[in-house]
């Protein structure tokens, strides 16, 4: 079975094949590079991997859903990575990235409360100019415009609570 796995901006093709007669044994090819892997599910969030070909390198891999659809958070010994399997790309990254061309939807990066709205529809804004201030965990974060342009729409009001990913404003 083959999967496309995107981690750190790179997409790799991973082919997985069961090895007959050995519990938890898989032949895994990452972009054609073969590994013999002993993989066991330790608990609901943890896979223990031993790469048998690489002198038995042991990896404890914690995998949970990130909350963004289709995205996994994968933690190994030395860091936390986002992984998207089979191109189920998260919408937020598609929004946040992609340069400052065309109409831009500005979304809430975390759940919180709108404490100030700094612009109204029709305002001309500079790149990085503040649009709204979101408060969460006693911290106020100014959400800024990704580009110079005109505010097409302000989609929230002061005092409103928002979920992560909620559109706050549109700049065109």
């Amino acid at each position, binding site marked *: 079975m083959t999967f496309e796995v995107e981690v750190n901006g790179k997409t790799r093709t991973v082919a*997985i094949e069961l090895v007959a007669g050995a519990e938890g044994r898989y032949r895994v090819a990452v972009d054609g590079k073969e590994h013999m*892997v002993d*993989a066991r599910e330790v608990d609901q969030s943890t896979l223990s*991997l031993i790469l048998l070909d690489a002198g038995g390198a042991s990896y404890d891999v914690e995998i949970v859903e990130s*909350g963004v659809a289709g995205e996994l*958070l994968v933690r190994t010994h030395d860091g*936390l990575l986002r992984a998207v399997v089979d191109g189920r790309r998260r919408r937020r990254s598609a929004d946040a990235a992609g340069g400052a061309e065309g109409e831009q939807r500005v979304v809430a990066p975390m759940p919180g409360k709108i404490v100030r709205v700094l612009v109204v529809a029709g305002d001309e804004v500079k790149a990085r100019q503040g649009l709204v201030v979101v408060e*969460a965990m*006693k911290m106020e*974060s100014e959400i800024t415009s990704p580009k110079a342009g005109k505010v097409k729409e302000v989609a929230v009001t002061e005092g409103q609570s928002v979920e992560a990913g909620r559109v706050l404003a549109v700049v065109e």
Partner: protein
Amino acid sequence: MKILVANRGEIAVRVMRACRDMGIATVAVYSDCDRTAPFVRYADEAVALGGNAPGESYLRIDKVLDAAKRTKATAIHPGYGFLAENSQFARACRDARLKFVGPSPEVMDLLGGKTAAREVAIKAGAPVVPGTDGPVAEHLSDADVLAIGSKIGYPLMVKAVAGGGGKGMRVVAGPEALINAVRTARSEARTSFGDAAVFFERRLLRPRHVEIQVLGDEHGTVLPFVERECSIQRRHQKVIEETPSVVVSPELREKIAGAAAAVTRRAGYTNAGTVEFLLDEDGQFYFLEVNTRLQVEHPVTEMVTGLDLVQWQIRIAQGERLTLDPSRLLTPHGHAIECRVYAEDPEQKFMPAPGLIRHLRSPAGPGIRDDSGVAAGFEVPIFYDSLISKVIAWGEDRQQAIARMSRALSEYEIGGLKTTIPFFQWILHDPDFLAARMDTTLLDRVLADREGQPFQEVSIASEEAAVIGAALHTFLQGRRTPSESGGGRGAATSTWKRAARLDALRS
């Protein structure tokens, strides 16, 4: 004795542990979103305050006192933050015949305001930073405010009189930024502390933040402790604390501790408190303020002195005398460091990262203490401080403490939300940090320099393991029958929620 803990999170658990160690019953009070938080489950009794925002829950003096009355609590421990430095609350406790585990409201009034505390310090002979003698009046014209600024000199700090934790605080480089800084500081101070008053203080260039823990009993004894070094701050918020400071000699320690004791003695201080100082490169130190409460970073002091500060707070509140050998408190045994694990995404400018903890495994083993306020299945709320855990490492020396801290952080598995752990793993290997070449501006400067660079360096091998893990995970998920995937990974609470939703529909 039965103690109501008027707080939440890790500090509520911390206080309740001390109570359990002493055989004292505990009462938790909680907001709606904290219903399943560990401190509620740890308490012997728990009373709902209702609401979520601090102003509806943990800051409601009336509700807290009502909970105390209903549960027949005899004392209240305020933790830090929320009502801990609110003298009105301390007074209301006294009126309700509840022992407040902290200093008297009179002492809080005297030392809690930064400008009044400054006067006490001057009278006690402690050196202070040049600044305004009191709050800058709100009705002054911009021109008047600018005149005051010029008199103090730039750079200067605008600080909330009632402040703490970097809230309501602004650094002002020159007159052009002053008026705006005063406005935003006042606004933040009003939101955070309900008091918009601010004052100005000269900003020292590259000072260290050094502070002295004190304990005072109700019989006139005040004892100072070995210093804590808290110079690693991000936007005036401490992120790493340690003790002792490598730049403080035993002689200098005597002097700073002496000044801290003099200030608090003069104020008639009782219970636990901390006197904060700035320390210049030439060894000059300046009184900054007094925190009339237990501090977040108190565990590092506990690790090197062996004293349980919360137990002592309670013993003092019970009227006990401080029978400790003063020299012991000034003689650290080894070295201790604390990292504050925040639910923030260091890779996104430390943006708050509340959310559901889907998996949790805490570090342990030699030299490690984890004071956590969360558990798997708990949703870290958006309404409060983002501190979820404090990892404290002890070592024979600083190097061993740092090595153990780094190991402990590598063991910490917090699944489902972003934390500052990758940031700590980076700073713990920073050459300036390792050499203890630090001041309160270090971290902000370094962070500005490396803007955009990720903190973690995942090795190629680890990245490959992550790729393999993600693919195998998906492979195994796919092999499950549809009925199984419902109860699969990270879905600890989903079945519950579904049941709850069904309930709601029926009712």
